[in-house]
């Protein structure tokens, strides 16, 4: 009963449009006060939440992506993909997915991915006869790859909550991310054979080579950052810093499109984006502290054990709940609210935390394109001024494809786990 009241209170504040961090914090504070706990205890919680060096990875990955966007390095990436495969049937769609995939491995964020690819890709697709809604859908969905293909801000958050290795999580997201990208590409080609879209002429090897040269430094970025982590040159935090430095050098010295003004903009935008995330982290931790002290997670774990859930039953139930939450809530909040509550039960059922982390990420990708609240839907609406309904209907096929991907990952956990465990990460 108490549990229901707490969540209803939180929901009411959220639906009234109160900023998520404040709604979470206010609910947590109210719970503490109601149960006669010491409200000043949140001082320790606030401090402990942020006093973590690993959190530095979040602003640094955001900064890296910001520099790449503001240095217009992304335009070259898209141009290269466009020249390379634009001419095959459905190729413009595939080129969009491909550039989303590459940018996803530069950016830790799905919104950044959709934002930076969308403005170049959508007009091209529409020009060559793609139905506008399919063009909107492919970018909205392709953008979500940002959190599954490493690096990924949400994975960093998940690893902080569960203590699972970031390196292992990043590696675990790679194959599923490519798999989802493949599903999207196949769908684009399939769609092209049904529809009336045309393709641009093949611009010739020379043009492909030229655009490849232009995009070279941007293309080198993912191997530099991720390779650095897996060869042990960098910790994830250091990779983010080295990647930022790399992006700065590429944008200023090589592309010469990045001046002091752009640096200032990139830095302020990085601060704002990071702080939106940090604020929610703070709010979620206060909420989490409050419900932990009234033993909600422990009771859920006891309940799960007493009901006698199997691992699979539990995973299916949790995935369904998170899918529904994902329709209304924003992904950072979902990770931070659900993970601490479910963790004791997951430990009791011996659920692999790396595998679950990847399932969670795919589910959160879905959340970004399911109505009514989907960040990528809003982003695409924002940059095209298309009606939201059109973006939503364009995204529907991709929701189904991602659900298929999620089912595959649930049935065959190895798709996610063989790389990290093969590479020697302990559990």
């Amino acid at each position, binding site marked *: 009963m108490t549990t229901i009241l707490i969540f209803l209170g939180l929901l009411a*504040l*959220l*639906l*009234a*449009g*109160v*900023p*998520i*961090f*404040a*709604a979470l*914090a*206010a609910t947590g*504070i109210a719970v503490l006060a109601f149960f006669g706990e010491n*409200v*000043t*205890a*949140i*001082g*320790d919680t*606030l*401090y402990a939440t*942020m*006093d*973590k*060096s690993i*959190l*530095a990875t979040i*602003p*640094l990955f955001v*900064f890296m992506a910001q520099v790449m966007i503001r240095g217009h390095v992304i335009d070259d990436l898209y141009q290269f993909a466009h020249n390379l495969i634009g001419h095959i049937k459905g190729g413009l769609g595939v080129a969009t997915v491909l550039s989303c995939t590459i940018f996803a491995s530069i950016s830790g964020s799905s919104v950044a991915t959709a934002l930076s690819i969308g403005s170049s890709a959508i007009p091209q697709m529409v020009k060559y006869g793609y139905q506008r809604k399919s063009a909107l859908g492919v970018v909205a969905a392709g953008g979500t790859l940002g959190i599954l293909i490493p690096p990924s801000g949400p994975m960093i958050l998940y690893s902080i909550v569960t203590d699972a290795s970031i390196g292992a999580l990043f590696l675990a997201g790679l194959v599923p991310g490519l798999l989802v990208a493949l599903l999207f590409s196949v769908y684009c080609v399939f769609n092209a054979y049904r529809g009336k879209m045309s393709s641009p002429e093949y611009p010739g090897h020379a043009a492909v080579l030229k655009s490849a040269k232009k995009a070279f430094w941007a293309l080198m970025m993912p191997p530099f950052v991720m390779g650095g982590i897996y060869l042990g040159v*960098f910790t994830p*935090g*250091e990779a*983010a*810093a*080295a990647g*930022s*430095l790399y992006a700065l050098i590429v944008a200023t010295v090589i592309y010469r499109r990045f001046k002091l003004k752009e640096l200032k903009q990139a*830095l*302020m935008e*990085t*601060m*704002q984006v*990071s*702080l*939106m995330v*940090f*604020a*929610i*982290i*703070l*709010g979620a931790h206060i909420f989490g502290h409050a419900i932990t002290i009234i033993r909600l997670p422990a009771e859920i774990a006891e309940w799960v054990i007493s009901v006698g859930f199997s691992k699979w039953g539990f995973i299916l139930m949790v995935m369904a709940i998170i899918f529904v939450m994902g329709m*209304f*809530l*924003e992904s*950072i909040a979902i990770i931070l609210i659900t993970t601490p509550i479910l963790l004791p039960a997951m430990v009791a059922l011996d659920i692999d935390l790396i595998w679950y982390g990847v399932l969670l990420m795919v589910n959160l990708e879905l959340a970004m394109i399911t109505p*009514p*609240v989907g960040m990528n839907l809003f982003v695409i609406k924002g940059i095209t001024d298309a009606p939201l309904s059109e973006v939503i209907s364009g995204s529907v096929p991709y929701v189904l494809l991602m659900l298929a991907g999620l089912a595959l990952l649930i049935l065959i956990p190895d798709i996610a786990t063989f790389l990290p465990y093969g590479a020697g990460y302990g559990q």
Partner: protein
Amino acid sequence: MIFILLRVLPRLGGVLSALLILMVLALICYAVLARYFFNAPLPWSDEMLGYLMVATAFLGLSSVLLDDRHIAIDLLTPLFSGAVQKAFNLLGYAVVFAVAIVFLYASWETLTFNRNFGLYSVGELDAPIWVTQIPMALGSALLALAAATKFIERLLNITPESRS
């Protein structure tokens, strides 16, 4: 005039926070250099990053609020009339204000307690913890200030255009 003043301080917090991110970048790059090129890893960088993250997170909260960029769910609110929307907005700022005041109070109690208790960090920096908690109190105070400013501006229908 007063509104300009109320807005300057929270903005300053945002600028500080952005500069701290640049400092974090510099510190990590320096630590990597020290490790690989001078074979002299910095034993204090990890600890320092923690303190920098605390300061970064709290000092900038107010600036993000001034720009209304804290993530909220605007699912139902657009369905209502202007007056109701205004009430929802005011509620939002009021909740942020209340939360900020509790943050400020809790931060202040925590840092004065840790000061009297004599709590030090375990790492190489030997830092008195309360000092590293000052940005937490400061940032919460700025957040309260920014929330109050936004509340009043919305109440009196002051927009950025009408102000300047």
